[in-house]
């Protein structure tokens, strides 16, 4: 099952993923129109400074089994096996905050959403952009990422890649990880 793979070592902290995420989860899915909407669109991915010029895109890992699903008193968080996601149903969410208490990655946001107009706020997090998926497009954050810090692919492939790199370190001094492109290196020099 494809998922969003995060490579923090490539992230430059440009926040374009946040902008794309917020726009994708607006009613119009258009940046300019979204600014005037009654529900201010909210990004479901956060980017934190990570020290040493690194930044860290933090989003829902779609755990299976998911701690948030186990604690949800409203039955609003369910596993979607067909999409490989752990989804929140805004129509059922009662904004109790239990999921934030359980999530070991700190990815939940609470805000109003047009999907549940009668509520003051509901729990929001990454949903792997179902509307885009239906059109065969990758999630908005992946499309927006210019440095390959967010890619959409099979986690097994990413794991195998990392495992091969680690395995080599048993026999030799660790080779450098995949080279960071010159553009990223230069950008960091600016900072």
């Amino acid at each position, binding site marked *: 099952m494809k998922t969003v793979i995060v490579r*923090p*070592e490539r*992230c430059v902290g440009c926040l374009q993923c946040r902008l794309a995420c917020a726009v994708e989860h607006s009613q119009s899915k258009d940046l300019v129109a979204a600014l005037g909407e009654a529900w201010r669109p909210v990004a479901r991915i*956060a*980017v*934190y*400074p*990570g*020290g*040493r010029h*690194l*930044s*860290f895109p*933090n989003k829902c890992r779609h755990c299976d089994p998911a*701690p948030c699903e*186990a*604690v949800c*008193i*409203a*039955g609003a968080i369910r596993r979607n096996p067909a999409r490989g996601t752990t989804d929140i149903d805004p*129509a*059922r969410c*009662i*904004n*109790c*905050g*239990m999921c*934030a*208490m*359980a*999530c*070991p*990655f*700190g*990815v*939940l*946001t*609470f805000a109003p959403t047009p999907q549940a107009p009668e*509520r*003051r706020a509901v729990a929001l997090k990454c949903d792997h952009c179902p509307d885009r998926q239906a059109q065969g497009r990758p999630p908005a954050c992946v499309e927006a990422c210019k440095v390959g810090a967010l890619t959409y692919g099979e986690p097994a492939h990413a794991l195998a890649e990392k495992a091969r790199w680690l395995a080599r370190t048993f026999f030799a001094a*660790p*080779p*450098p*990880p995949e080279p*960071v492109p010159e553009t990223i*290196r230069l950008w*960091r020099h600016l900072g």
Partner: protein
Amino acid sequence: MRYVIIGTSAAGLAGAETLRRLAPQARITLISDESHLPYSRPLLMYLLGRETTREKLFLRSPDYFREWGFETLLGTPVTRVDPGAREVHLADGRALPYDRLLIASGAKPRLPPIPGLELSGVFTLRHLADVERLERHLAQARRVAVVGAGAVGLKAADALAHRGLAVDLLARGAQPLSKVLDQVSARLLMEAIARLGISLHLNSWPTAVVGNGGRVTALALNDGRELPTDAVLFSVGVAPRVEFLASTTLAAPEGIPVDEHLQTGDPDIFAAGDCVLPRHLLTGAPAAFHIWPAAVAQGEVAGANLAGAARRYDGILPMNSISLRGCRIITGGHLTPDTPEGEIFEELDATTGRFKRLVFDQGRLVGATLVGEVRHAGIYFRLIANRTPVKDLPVDPRSPHFHPGRLWARPLPGAA
């Protein structure tokens, strides 16, 4: 193998579903004294506040029992368990044999020993039928008194105020949630309570419910005052439902004692949820704490162990999320350190009302309270549960830089 599960709420269902996954062919019978489909008890407050609907209470589909292959005996209370004969006796006179039994009978609301409890207009809120009774009474009520300012009482007061009723909330101590909240968080909570228009009475408890013509008219308080009211809702805690174990040696008044496998004194009987007395995750001491997520976690362990999995239950870490309109608090673990070397860190942002309070003991985080901004609560609780030494963390939890970036973004060796 014939499995019987008493109780169809959080722990009973989690147990039954885990058991079914491990024992696809087993005969599993669920017993409940309620005849509804399984529903979420914590949601009853939200139903009362009209923040959810009756149909959204039900967590499973109408075909649930059939889909999972569970036999059910709904609306049939259990009167006695006979561990010698391995039988569960039901109120209708039947005796149900079992090979392995899971007791997930839950808890019942406590009531204080005061006169006037038989009056019309005295309520507790635990079952769906309680909400229906309360709803009928509220049609002619204007003032409601909520006795007990714990998590349930606070949410009930919020729900009733949301419906436009005049609400008096009685707290026995000098602050609400006195067992789990520090003074600063309690002050922020009390400010939120005042903003909701709820009248909070501190150091107050009722000495009698006063009535006229069989109906509640007032509450007599400890300080001699008489508080006029049309209804009284008691939320002064719960007691485990273990009456049907009176003829056995399985139960204690504080709950059913269990070992780390949630096994009772009888090797074929397991127990989970609000009816048990589990161990505290950090101290190992018996700790009764009634919360839905813990009941689910215990149900999963007990269900697996019914099938012989020998899974361990690590213990309960008390924690809760208090979400009122305009105020969110997540708190858990220890309120104060156990040893004199312990330390408390507090950081209040007076302009935003955000507050962070951490309790450290013996080099480890043992308690956390977050008010306002709670999105990283689960990270703190994971550190508490894992007993991670603070010195092993890439960033100190007291630091403003304690966030996912500093915790998890670490350059690979050799990277620029």
